[in-house]
């Protein structure tokens, strides 16, 4: 039998407090398990203030939980304090940040993060070895070193930058990626490229992904399992499709009902007919298909 990849046992975290001060509960009693050898996209859904980002920070061992335990491959994150242990942990768990323009130092070239990661985690000595590692990782996200060598963040699009960030996170060969709102700052035309990439990482590289988002539609599109959080507590958990198609908890139902559909509301039949009268029948093949077929963005 193998130990679970990640196990959260009754995680809680409060901020503030102290003498006569108000104590805010950010996260309360969250438990879930990701199994080893069964890579999945696990979505944590919640609105702002639901505690989902705090949870992400605790999983990344950047903040210690106030209550409960987080076990990574059976080891309590609280015992990971020595530099060597931390590095071993980072080898296996890597983050993807929300704002790709913020995640790279605007005054520095983006490729140096790739070289630094290759140097520290794969032991690649010398520029040639580091460039080889960087190029290999960039190919996994549909880029190449030639495209980004020597570039500054402002010279790349949000989608490209986010893929560079994912490539960097892949260099150590992690088993788990923690992605906190990774596509919310990316333009619509490029967003799906990044979202599809997560799916490919899961299927082809066997990386599990914790996908933190407020966007139910993309969560439906890529997740296997989801949990829905409200004010720090998990209100509903389960298979992504089941939870999103037939939510049970009142809050999940409200959340689901509040999602605006991108399809135009159905008009009166007569009106719709009038609007389309005299208009030739669809002259196009299904709109996205021709574009999708040519999209070489993610090979």
């Amino acid at each position, binding site marked *: 039998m193998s130990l679970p990849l990640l196990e959260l046992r009754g995680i809680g975290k409060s901020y503030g407090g102290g003498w006569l001060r108000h104590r805010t509960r950010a996260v309360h009693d969250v438990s879930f398990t990701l199994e080893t050898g069964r890579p999945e996209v696990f979505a944590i859904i919640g*609105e*702002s203030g639901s505690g989902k980002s705090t949870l992400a920070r605790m999983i990344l061992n950047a903040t210690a939980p106030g209550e409960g335990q987080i076990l990574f491959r059976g080891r309590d994150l609280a015992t990971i304090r020595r530099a060597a242990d931390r590095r071993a942990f980072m080898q296996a768990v890597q983050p993807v940040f929300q704002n790709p323009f913020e995640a790279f130092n605007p005054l520095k070239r983006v490729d140096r993060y790739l070289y630094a990661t290759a140097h520290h985690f794969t032991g690649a000595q010398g520029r040639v070895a580091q460039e080889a590692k960087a190029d290999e990782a960039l190919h996994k996200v549909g880029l190449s070193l030639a495209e980004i060598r020597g570039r500054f963040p402002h010279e*790349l*699009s*949000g*989608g*490209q930058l986010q893929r560079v960030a994912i490539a960097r996170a892949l260099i150590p060969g992690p088993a788990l990626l923690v992605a906190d709102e990774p596509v919310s700052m990316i*333009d*619509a*035309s*490029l*967003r*799906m*490229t*990044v*979202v*599809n990439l997560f799916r490919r990482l899961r299927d082809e590289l066997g990386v599990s992904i914790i996908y933190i988002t*407020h966007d*139910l*539609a*993309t969560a*439906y*599109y890529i997740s296997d399992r989801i949990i829905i959080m409200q004010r720090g507590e998990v209100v509903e958990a389960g298979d992504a499709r089941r939870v*999103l*198609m037939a939510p049970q908890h009142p809050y999940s139902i*409200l*959340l*689901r009902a*509040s*999602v*605006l*559909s*991108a*399809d*135009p*509301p*159905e*008009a*009166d039949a007569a*009106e*719709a007919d009038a*609007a*389309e009268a*005299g*208009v*030739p029948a*669809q*002259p*196009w093949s*299904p*709109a*996205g298909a*021709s*574009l*999708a077929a*040519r*999209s*070489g*963005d*993610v090979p």
Partner: protein
Amino acid sequence: MTEETMMLAPPRPTPALPAPVLSVEKLRAYYQMRFFGVTREVRAVDGITLQIGRNEIYGIAGESSSGKSSLIKTIARAIRPPLNVVDGSVRFDFGEGPADIYKLDPHALAAIRWRHLSYIMQGSMNVLNPVRRIRHSFLDFAFRHMHLPMPVFLQRVEGHLARLNLEPRVLNAYPHELSGGMRQRVTIALATVCRPAFIIADEPTTALDVVVQKSVLTMIRGIQQEMGSSVLFVTHDMAVHANLTDRLGIMYAGRLVEEAPTRSLLRRPLHPYTRHLVASLPRIGDDAPKAGLNGTPPSLAKPPPGCRFHPRCPLAMDICRTEAPPMEELLPGHRVACHAVRQELAS
């Protein structure tokens, strides 16, 4: 969940445009910058023509750096150097005949602002003074323009707040005591209390949670219908447009590429960019694979020649690389700027 319950208001036929409230003609506004001898010109708004009728919600959709924010700033004459109007006109007609907002003297401009024209911004915290009660914001912004005695004015404000489901006691609150959604509703109340004929809304719901977003949108729709105002609504979120706007213009790299009644635009997008945009939207319950668009949005400082979309366009032809397609009405009420679409519809 049926589509009917998702709607915020019953759809209305697009009003005819006898005399548009706003008409923008061939507007060009560039950022012109000089830094220690390096001159840069960013063509944020590059030749935009559009008209907005009375009692209409007109949406503008576009990605970051498509120039949509620059466009509405230019329309509201809220621009500062380095953003300058290079060419074209912005004419408002509030029943006194069309007047170019860039030809008004400061007094006439001040009279028009807030009386006829108001602005709802994304960061609601920025409008409300954090150290003063909400009441003061109303006094500062609206009292002067309404020419009412104080008790009548306060009564009007309270009545207006009630319409937005806000209790009168929010007037005595400080901005930080209100939730994000309430703050945004207060800014909407501020922007609409003078019953302006034209409201410009810049991503007013982007920072809000989805549950709050929906109620705020419902309110904007309700108040617009009640007052018969025109709204220019800007957001990158197509779902918001689908549920709120009557007509929709799509911006790409500083230009308008498509414009049509929202419903027909989403049902039957013509421009290749719009088609990809609409097709790639993930929907709950839709398991079809979605693709991202290849290539990257062009830099407005160095836009590609010809059609600005051609480097990413699956339908690109030779002419697209050299000649920018004009914006033409190819279907009734449906304007598109695309050589390929024109050819296909002609054949």
